[in-house]
């Protein structure tokens, strides 16, 4: 009997438990606090055992060694003719490009080209806080990159953003601009959140304090799209040019800087994208429609697992985690992917 209870707990942990099994397990737990203790202790032991293997892996590095070993054994082959021809074309292209660039550079002697840039980038799963040359504070999100001239020389205090950042800008006469693709956000001194992952084709600007101007490059000319006040937000689709304007809770939008997430009626697809950048994992839906579910959820400084459990409970969907890869599927399914 005792063995059976352990088997049920293990099945539950491995997510292979049947409906009947789950009912039996719940009933057994309710019988006595000793059973509950056995359940939670066993789960923690299983989790600890699993964490025994949490190591960085270097398959590419190891494969490179194996490949080298294989190649050593084989006799050197003559480079096939096609390959040689390709090398010639590549070399020719390179020469053309380089000379073209040199000509362009000599004709366009803009000092800006020789300015020194500082680039800060975060991989998915990491977010950082730092100061800009004018003492403005930036919180840079996961999977994001920020570039700016070293001493903010130039007519404006210009930064270039691909990703998400929250800015708390010091008031100065020189305007502070955030350029993300064709969209530029201009302020004098204020705090606001810009979410502009180039790969997501969307720029969203949310104002916390002060006033912000959002401009777009239209036929090479900057034009004002909208001025935003606190708790106002604009969200632009950079492919179609369509945008939406609404009021929102600005604190909720930049709560990520404090490791909190607040989503109001947001599609699971968007939530998953935020989680990817924050936790540094890849989240995929086994069916695209599953991402359309809209949820309202709050996470305060939780682990990925906790977040996925919550989302799973709220959405009625299931998730499967394999290392840094999470699959979201229907409730009675597990997800996975064939490696290509």
């Amino acid at each position: 009997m005792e063995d059976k209870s352990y088997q049920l707990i293990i099945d539950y942990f491995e997510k292979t438990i049947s409906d009947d099994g789950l009912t039996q397990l719940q009933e057994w737990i309710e019988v006595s606090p000793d059973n509950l203790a056995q359940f939670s202790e066993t789960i923690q032991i299983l989790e600890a055992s699993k964490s025994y293997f949490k190591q960085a892996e270097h398959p590419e590095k190891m494969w490179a060694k194996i490949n080298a070993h294989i190649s050593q054994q084989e006799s050197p082959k003559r480079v096939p003719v096609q390959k040689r021809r390709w090398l010639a074309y590549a070399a020719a292209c390179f020469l053309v490009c380089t000379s073209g660039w040199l000509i362009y550079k000599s004709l366009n002697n803009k000092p800006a080209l020789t300015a020194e840039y500082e680039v800060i980038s975060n991989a998915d799963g990491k977010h950082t806080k730092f100061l800009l040359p004018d003492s403005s504070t930036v919180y840079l999100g996961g999977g994001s990159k920020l570039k700016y001239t070293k001493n903010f020389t130039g007519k404006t205090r210009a930064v270039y953003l691909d990703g998400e950042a929250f800015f708390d800008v010091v008031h100065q006469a020189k305007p502070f601009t955030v350029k993300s693709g064709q969209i530029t956000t201009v302020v004098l001194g204020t705090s606001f959140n810009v979410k502009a992952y180039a790969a997501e084709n969307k720029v969203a600007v949310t104002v916390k304090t002060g006033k912000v101007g959002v401009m777009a490059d239209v036929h090479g000319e900057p034009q004002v799209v909208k001025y935003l006040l606190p708790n106002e937000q604009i969200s632009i689709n950079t492919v179609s040019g369509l945008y939406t304007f609404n009021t929102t809770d600005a604190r909720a939008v930049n709560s990520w800087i404090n490791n909190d997430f607040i989503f109001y009626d947001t599609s699971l697809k968007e939530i998953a994208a935020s989680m990817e950048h924050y936790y540094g994992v890849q989240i995929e839906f086994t069916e695209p429609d599953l991402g359309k579910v809209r949820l309202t959820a709050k996470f305060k400084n939780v682990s990925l697992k906790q977040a996925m459990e919550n989302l799973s409970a709220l959405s009625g969907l299931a998730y499967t985690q394999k290392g840094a890869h999470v699959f979201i599927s229907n409730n009675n399914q597990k997800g996975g992917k064939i490696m290509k």
Partner: protein
Amino acid sequence: MYPALTDEALMSLLKQNDHLALETLFSRHYKSLCQFCTVYTRDYTVAEEIIANLFMKLWDNRHDALILNVKSYLFASAKNLSLNHIQKKKAPVDFMEDLEMGQDVIHDRDTPFKILSGRESYNGILTVIDTLPASQRQVLLMSRIDNLDKQEISRILGISVRTVETTLYQSIKKLRLLLKGHHNSAFGS
């Protein structure tokens, strides 16, 4: 690569000198093999080296090898290579380290059963796992490896599937006892 082919189909291709078949086998089994080795070597980097050597050997012997079940072959070889490695390494010093680990458990004031996640908070439990009798420790850890089921564990360790199950339960029971043993407070209540 050839994701749709079985291990055995890949072996036939391997005998025809197909690199890609080796690469497919490698990426398919690399992670679980490394984790499996780590159970023996307790050092992940060493495990990776052992597995790399294993695949090099597999390539070298591709024509001679008469392998019926590829996965069993890979894990059995990994086990042998790991044990060889440990034999070479084994020195009196290692025994001392094992003893000291046991004593740390007694002095540990923190309750290992904290309701937290993350490797740091599992250190208490992990330390005690390494002091379990070898067979219990092996079964407990190997059963956590993805793509390694009870049948395979029974084959690799040379015990019946039923023994794998009972050893697993015993390891959990023993751990619960050890982790409770030196602390007055109940955990988590």
